[in-house]
């Protein structure tokens, strides 16, 4: 998708200009600053496991593949939390993978789903503020995934 990659070019350009920071919108600053960081979170690393291939293949075709890698959606933003979580997942996945004992098709668990939902909100805060602002008062928040399940990859 050349269109998207060019977009990506633009996005990182803005990042360089630091406009994102100026605008002071956390989610996007984080995103823009990260262009390079993608390399450190190479999706291919996840797909070291063939069982992740389906997601990887679909991710390449998703609206997000130029803007969000696996870990942007599957690990918390906070630096330490992120690596702890990765470790947790990594460990869990390795065990599961080697033991081969896991539910198929693979399904996201409650913990990871919460992480992911959080990540949506962080990046899209500007867009969803309006629909989310009043949600604080509600005992349960709106699930993004319910409608946008496939933005990262088909399942």
């Amino acid at each position: 998708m050349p269109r998207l990659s060019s977009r990506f070019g633009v996005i990182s350009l803005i990042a360089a200009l630091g406009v994102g920071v100026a605008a002071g919108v956390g989610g996007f600053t984080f995103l823009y600053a990260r262009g390079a960081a993608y390399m450190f979170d190479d999706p291919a690393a996840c797909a070291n496991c063939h069982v992740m291939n389906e997601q990887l293949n679909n991710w390449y075709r998703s609206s997000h593949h130029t803007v969000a890698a696996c870990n942007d959606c599957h690990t918390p933003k906070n630096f330490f939390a992120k690596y702890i979580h990765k470790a947790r997942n990594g460990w869990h996945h390795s065990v599961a993978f080697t033991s081969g004992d896991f539910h198929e098709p693979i399904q996201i668990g409650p913990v990871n789903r919460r992480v992911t939902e959080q990540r949506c909100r962080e990046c899209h805060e500007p867009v969803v503020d309006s629909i989310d602002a009043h949600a604080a008062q509600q005992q349960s928040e709106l699930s993004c995934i319910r409608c946008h399940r496939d933005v990262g990859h088909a399942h």
Partner: protein
Amino acid sequence: ALAVNIMEKKQEAKNPYFRVTELTDQTEDPEVWGKNFPLQYDGYKRTVDMVRTRFGGSEAVPRDPSDKDPRAATAQSRLDEDPRLRTFWNGYAFAVDFREERGHAYMLEDQIFTERQQASPQPGTCLHCHGSMYVPYMKAGDGDLIKGFEKLNPLPYAEARKHVTHPVACIDCHDPQTLALRVTRPGFLEGIRALKASQGVADYDVNTQATRQEMRTYVCGQCHVEYYFKGKEKRLTYPWAKGIKVEQILEYYEEVGHKDWTHKQAGTANLKAQHPEFELFSQGIHARSGVACADCHMPYTREGAQKISDHHVRSPLLNINHACQTCHRWPEEELAARVHQIQGRTYELRNRGMDAVVGLIQDLEKAVAAGKTDEELKTARALHRRAQFMVDFVEAENSMGFHADQEAARILGVAVDLARQGQLALRDPNFQPQLQPTNVTPTPREVSPPGAAEKK
């Protein structure tokens, strides 16, 4: 271009809205709310649009305004579209005037000026679902919603309507401080409590116990439901104490011995079903999948950098891309075709049901003319009452079966069976009608599939 675009998005986004005015629990006028939430207010105002779909939307039929009825246009008459309806409801106000429903903006005037008002005097209760009632109820009850409700219900309609100024407004669905959704309708507060009780949940309080997603359906369930007026206090009641499936509602009405009117030709103590969207929808696959009314009828829409709920509440077929395509990646034509296929099947059965019930009505009329006694007509009338309510349940429901396609077809199938049996009973005193089918359960030694435990 995109760069700029993103910039703009960000600025606008910085703060979704400014609170230009303070909203209180007495702020009834949506225009005032609109100062804080102009986008939602714009959508809200667009409910005046009249566009029709195959079975929904509405069609503007021009008319000469009179002082008796100043409306310059109404929605098309369903009685003219299907003359059988006049026989169907003969003797009841609905046989005089019944129109396709239209946008929320019209709810108050359409209720005031429907000829049903002349046909028979109506109580203040009617306003519960046709006006912005939160403030009027609170005022009338000196701060007690239920008291106010009980006070306005028994008043003559003309009296009660003096208290009402707007169609449903922001304050009827929202908390003015937090904008969180809230149920303000006594009918639903009590109805859902009775329903939950029937499911073993005591003293259910919807405003504190419902999830946000449930609220996105319940605010609509405040009005899009079957109802009746209980006792001389004309208390608005939703017949859900035994459940909300059509058979459970019928069981409830049998138990309280309610009838809406006596059919003019058939002499049957009949029931009228009214817009049971909430009830039928609840039996469908979407409800079962946690989809809410607002998901399809108020889908999110992009306004600049923000996403807001489209407050132009209308037929999703007029807004398929937002209403359906986030969840279903099929082309718009395909999604529309799926709805039409479901509606077409429902419509065929609805017409068979209508023919059967109308046929039974004519047979009953003949039998009465032939001097048959009420005792002799008992069975046929019992079948008529039941069959007509079931046909009406789908007829009055406004999605032509889409909200719960197989359930709608099942209801109509049962209705046809009962109506035809009524005709048989009239022609043959020895005919043994069967309310329930012979149910041969598969042999007990059934190995249920992994966790096949039936969910109700």
